[in-house]
């Protein structure tokens, strides 16, 4: 199906992300990876998992916004992506109405 998407009209979007910007992002990503790994060696009990997930969310937002150009996409894609994530969040959290109280 990816091929299909390739045969659309000529691309309209003009934004080209600069190399420097991409380089800055990858540096940030590597630094964040370093941080989570480092934090995992420190025993924080309950907080380990939330911190790891928080860092992961930052990393994924960076990938989404810059590598995947989400920052420069239209509103429709932004909203729909957010709703997808919201749906995923609902799936995971609503399970806990059950498993947490069983």
């Amino acid at each position: 199906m990816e091929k299909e998407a390739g045969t659309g009209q000529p691309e309209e979007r003009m934004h080209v992300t600069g190399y420097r910007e991409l380089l800055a992002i990858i540096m940030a990503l590597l630094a964040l990876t370093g941080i989570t790994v480092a934090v995992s060696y420190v025993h924080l009990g309950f907080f380990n998992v939330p911190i790891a997930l928080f860092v992961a969310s930052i990393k994924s937002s960076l990938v989404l916004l810059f590598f995947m150009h989400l920052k420069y996409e239209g509103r429709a894609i932004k909203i729909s992506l957010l709703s997808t994530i919201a749906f995923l969040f609902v799936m995971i959290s609503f399970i806990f109405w059950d498993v947490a109280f069983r």
Partner: protein
Amino acid sequence: MWLFLYSEIILFGGLFVLYAAYFHEYPKNFAESGRELNRIIGSLNTVILLISSFTVAASLTAIQRGAKRLALSLITFSILCGATFLTIKYFEWGKHIREGVYPNSQVLQNGPPGNNIFFGLYYVITGLHGLHVIIGMTLLTISLVFILTGRVNERHFSMLENAGLYWHLVDLIWIFVFPLFYLVL
């Protein structure tokens, strides 16, 4: 393409639902099993994927600016990164399997149930992720060929763009898989 990515996100989402529920049920066993995974290898793989993601993004910039040769080498590099990732994964799986840790193995059956679930999820999620790496590599290869034949060029780059999006998604999923499996304590 984005719409297709959403469905991929939800596909993995189903597995993360299971992960969340079981993590809630067996926090101790999960932490214990997580320690058996090699954090260094996991980090190495994370770095490899992140860098390959960067090179894919850069190759799109390159093609948009008309730097065909640079784009070609960047994509080749990304594909090689993917291959390295899979090789590392292969040895990692191999090591666990030699230790007798694989689905339905005696070691897991006799151990605590949480460990079995943890490794079950580990194999399913990383396996599915590996499959996606392979698909992503295929897509990148197709883009590579298209750049060579000139079907992908500075005006028509959406094939590469979509292959890139897919590759970033693979990266994105790994960003969550990594802490959930390698860093739970």
